[in-house]
């Protein structure tokens, strides 16, 4: 159905609250030096969660940029578990296990967009059902990869949803320095595909846009570009100081439209949400992330991991390097 039902609305808000709650826990862990650089999801929850709830997790792929993982709970607990390993800098943090149809974070801006197009194209060649949704930012939209892939998707009518999370900033670069286009959605013209702008603070609007794009894709009509307008409420990452460049009035205006608060109010008014529920969800979310963190910390790591998974089997040079590594780490353990 194009509109989420009450149960779905509740689940969407649950996932939004979970994302927000876990994000703040993650921020603290970073501040304590327990995990590496974090890109907070704050402000993006409705866009990410709303989009993902319109997908079929069994058949549809999600290729995130780097800000979305906490919003992908619907795809299963493996996403968070793997994300915590990723945040620790553990190599297993890149391996979301089969059959979860989520790719690991993409650091290279725009680079996942042609992957999404190729994957969608491959699925349709194999007559597999399903679509691919790829998340990318307003900043990433300036990369050649976005355009080349969007254009290719248009030609191939690939079942892909190009989902641009326009949070108004690419680190310190505001959208008016990113493009002179009327909107990011209007770039769809260049690919001959539909472009849709939605209020990314409204999870229902996002859900509907993705639902429709999905229907279009699965019925062979090809890709859709969706621009979800949100506002980045936090820093770009834990390494960033947004007070240097974010105008404070703009920020406080955006805070008033906070997607989580707004949707809590909405669903509370509809009798679908309560403070008790909120508490329960938050408590569980914190427990869950702490559990994932503990698990990640206790995941063993051997020096051998450095050499594993480059090729299916070592080249002669890699064999030499591996034995050198084993010798020298062996030695240094003796100290």
């Amino acid at each position, binding site marked *: 159905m194009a509109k989420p039902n009450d149960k779905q609305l509740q689940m969407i808000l649950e996932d939004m609250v979970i994302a927000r709650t876990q994000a703040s826990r993650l921020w603290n862990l970073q501040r304590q030096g327990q995990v590496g650089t974090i890109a907070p999801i704050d402000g993006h929850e409705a866009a990410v969660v709303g989009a993902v709830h319109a997908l079929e997790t069994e058949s549809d792929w999600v290729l995130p940029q780097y800000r979305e993982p906490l919003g992908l709970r619907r795809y299963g607990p493996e996403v968070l578990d793997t994300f915590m390993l990723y945040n620790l800098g553990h190599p297993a943090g890149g391996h979301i296990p*089969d059959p979860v149809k989520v790719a690991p974070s993409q650091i*290279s801006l725009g680079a996942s967009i042609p992957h999404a197009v190729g994957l969608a194209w491959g699925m349709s060649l194999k007559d597999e059902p399903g679509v691919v949704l790829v998340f990318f930012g307003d900043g990433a939209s300036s990369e050649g990869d976005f355009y080349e892939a969007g254009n290719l998707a248009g030609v191939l009518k690939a079942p892909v949803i190009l989902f641009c999370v326009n949070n108004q900033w690419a680190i310190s670069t505001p959208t008016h320095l990113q493009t002179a286009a009327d909107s990011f959605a209007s770039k769809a013209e260049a690919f001959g595909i539909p472009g849709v702008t939605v209020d990314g603070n409204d999870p229902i609007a996002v859900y509907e846009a993705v639902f429709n794009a999905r229907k279009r894709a699965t019925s062979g009509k090809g890709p859709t570009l969706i621009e979800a307008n949100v506002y980045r409420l936090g820093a770009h990452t834990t390494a960033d100081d947004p007070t240097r460049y974010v105008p404070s009035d703009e920020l406080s205006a955006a805070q008033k439209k906070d997607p989580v608060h707004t949707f809590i109010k909405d669903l509370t008014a509809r009798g679908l949400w309560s403070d008790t529920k909120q508490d329960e969800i938050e408590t569980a979310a914190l427990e869950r992330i702490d559990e994932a963190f503990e698990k990640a910390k206790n995941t063993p790591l051997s020096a051998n991991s450095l050499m594993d998974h480059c090729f*299916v089997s070592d080249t002669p040079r890699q064999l030499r390097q591996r034995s050198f590594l084993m010798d020298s780490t062996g030695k240094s353990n003796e100290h």
Partner: protein
Amino acid sequence: MLEAINETLHSEMARDERIVLLGEDIGRNGGVFRATEGLIEKFGESRVVDTPISEAAIAGSAVGLAMAGLIPVAEIQFLGFSYQAMHQIAGQIARLRYRTQSRFESQITIRAPFGGGVRTPELHSDSLEAQFANIPGLKIVLPSTASDAKGLLTSAIRDPDPVLFLEPLRGYRGIRDLVPDEEHIVPLGKANLIKKGDDVVIISWSYQVELSRRVAESLEGDGISAAVLDLRSIVPLDIEALTQIVSHCGRAVVVQEAPETGGFASEIIATINDECFWSLEAPVVRVSGFDVPYPVGMLENFYVPDESRIRSAVLKTMEND
């Protein structure tokens, strides 16, 4: 060599229906060199795909096709235009297995012609193999015979890891040798000692092997017994074969078309230094392109190593007796 490549694509596509070809002008036109001739007619437009002129999207969508369980064989029309796709080749294809710890693999072959001697426009002839060799996660295969082209391309397509398959422009029509009709597999990473010798070994890959062989043969008349080692792939590098023949001869010449600085010949010399320094009777001599951009047609003969330069290099390494 062209026919060998075309035939291999035909037989591999017939063997495994997961194979999908993508690239510029590879369909109706059969490729600008006819390497993909007849394939669209045989396997249809959905398996032989003429893409927009977007090298990055060719390489990038190949990643997605591989994620979908297909086996993309992409063509970059000329190796020089792989620069347009470098962020996908080096940043994504080469790392897919590593960053996902083998959840995904890049069973992707990228074919691209390169190399001098045919007076092409800019960026058509550049030998970039050394730049790729410094990117871990890519295999780099450079056949020097038609028969090897078949055997190595078969292995490349079947290899679960990404392979850059570099075809010598001059060899497309200039190299003709007997190609086995039946399935023919040459494993990746096994060098070929195409000529035995005792005094010096000429080490090379791709079209320069042909020139090296000619020089080695002509040196017999001068009483110099020169071996020729065709590396066939520079990643994986057959360190054993390299070490063995260099140790045996005590003298070596490395021939490449690429610019001298940072060319793969340097890596060969460094490897010889590591593995068999003590058996060297003279410094290894490099024969290379020059440290300038690949030049226009009228300057090409000055740039590309030829038999006389290889010959002089061999004589030079024999001097220190």
